[in-house]
């Protein structure tokens, strides 16, 4: 197996994309440390907006070969409400108060910054490593749905990715981002996004060149690619995985 003997940290691993990434890297032979904000199975519980939590996480994980920052989403969880409902409709500017803004920026952007800051020095010491961050089509194309806080946080992820690629490149560490399009995760399916009516759903899928929504495994495959020989010289890139809905810059 191609990742035998390697160690990976996957955040946001309780469900959806994070769970698929965890499963895939395990199937490829890696030892995977999986974390989320709420208890589920054998996950390590950590609030990634809290540097102390991440330090505790690092004590358990050690030095990973791969850090996969999946944690995030358009609605920020809290330690009390770990699975908040997705918004029913489009979020417009006036809907978003300062607390929501700060919480979504923290859950999506600050978390990736803190995790990278914690683990990059360990990778630098070993002169190797791969970091995969999660952006979104909301940052690439803009979004009429998820709210400006989420799009801005994911835009921040792209800039953080490029900057860390420059900073960590001399240490043999690659840093890339994946920008998923519409991925039919259980939470997205529950929210009814893209399914307001059968006609709307059909039109929505017709607008995607590959004529289907993405699956969490579609994203996990790209993570596996970036962790393999194929990702050895790819760094600073944001890879759009959206069935052709938006091609990137």
């Amino acid at each position, binding site marked *: 197996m191609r990742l035998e003997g390697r160690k990976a940290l996957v955040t946001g691993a309780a469900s959806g994309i994070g769970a698929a990434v965890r499963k895939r890297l395990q199937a490829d032979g890696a030892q995977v440390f999986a974390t989320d904000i709420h208890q589920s199975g054998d996950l390590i519980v950590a609030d990634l907006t809290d540097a102390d939590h991440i330090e505790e996480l690092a004590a358990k994980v050690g030095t990973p070969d791969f850090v996969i920052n999946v944690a995030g989403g358009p609605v920020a969880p809290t330690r009390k409400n770990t699975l908040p409902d997705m918004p029913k409709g489009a979020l417009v500017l006036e809907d978003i108060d300062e607390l929501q803004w700060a919480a979504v920026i923290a859950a999506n952007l600050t978390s990736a910054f803190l995790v990278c800051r914690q683990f990059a020095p360990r990778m630098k010491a070993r002169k190797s490593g791969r970091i995969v961050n999660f952006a979104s089509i909301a940052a690439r194309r803009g979004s009429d749905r998820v709210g400006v806080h989420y799009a801005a946080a994911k835009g921040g992820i792209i800039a953080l990715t490029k900057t860390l690629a420059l900073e960590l490149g001399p240490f043999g560490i690659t840093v890339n981002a994946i920008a998923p399009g519409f991925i039919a995760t259980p939470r997205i399916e529950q929210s009814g996004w893209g399914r307001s009516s059968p006609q709307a759903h059909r039109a929505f899928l017709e607008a995607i060149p590959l004529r289907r929504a993405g699956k969490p495994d579609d994203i996990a495959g790209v993570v596996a*690619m970036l962790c393999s020989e*194929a990702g050895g*010289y790819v760094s600073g890139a944001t890879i759009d995985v959206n069935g*052709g809905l938006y091609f990137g810059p």
Partner: protein
Amino acid sequence: MKTAVVTGAAKPESIGHEVAVRLQKEGMQVVVLDLYEEGFSSLPGCRCVKCDVSDPGEVGKAFDSIKQVDVLVNCVGGSWEITRDDLRAGPRRGFRGLTNCSLEDWNAIRGANLDSVFYCCRAAAPLLKKQGGAVVNVSSVAARKGIPPGAEGSSGPYAVAKAGVMGLTRQLALELGSAGVRVNCVAPGVIASGRLKKVQAITPQGAGPEGPLKQIPMGRVGTVAETAALIVALCSDDTSYLTGVTIDVNGASYAA
């Protein structure tokens, strides 16, 4: 059994050569289209067809004998050793930008790097659409940032043609997506291919298309193996939801 067509695979130490070898290892029947006959013996098991892919007539003839295409990888390209006449000539000396290249250069370089991709995709499309599949094109970091005046071994027309390859990739992704054909592209930076070695042998360090190594954050050039592995991944189910995308593989030297 799946069939892959790979153009520009006959030269030793080329990205295309490594792609052909790896796709064969994945269990595919590989058909190679290339002018460089001397290299055919280095691809045992592949069906090698002598073909100038910048000539639509020759491409049409080559595809007459191909009954199935699951994968098409367009690797032919470069600024020299691309036509029948200069196939073994080595790198051209001097900087060739858009304002000082000959019309012959422009046509030959565009023909090898862009027209060839159009001809091969057009010929393969009906076969790809039958059962779905994947196309991978090879662009270049030159399409992102151009070739700096003074640099040898590459050219201005090359940068323009490779930008065209990115546009072609997007257009074909739209046209073939509903048939289950994915079309993607890689844009390599400086890769330690046989061709780079030939440039390095005749230019002072830092004067080739790669520029000074310190401009590459990863502090090294890429390998043919890494680049080929990425291309093969773009032919696989790992990238089943990617289409129309260009992946930059350049050691963080240019983030699009």
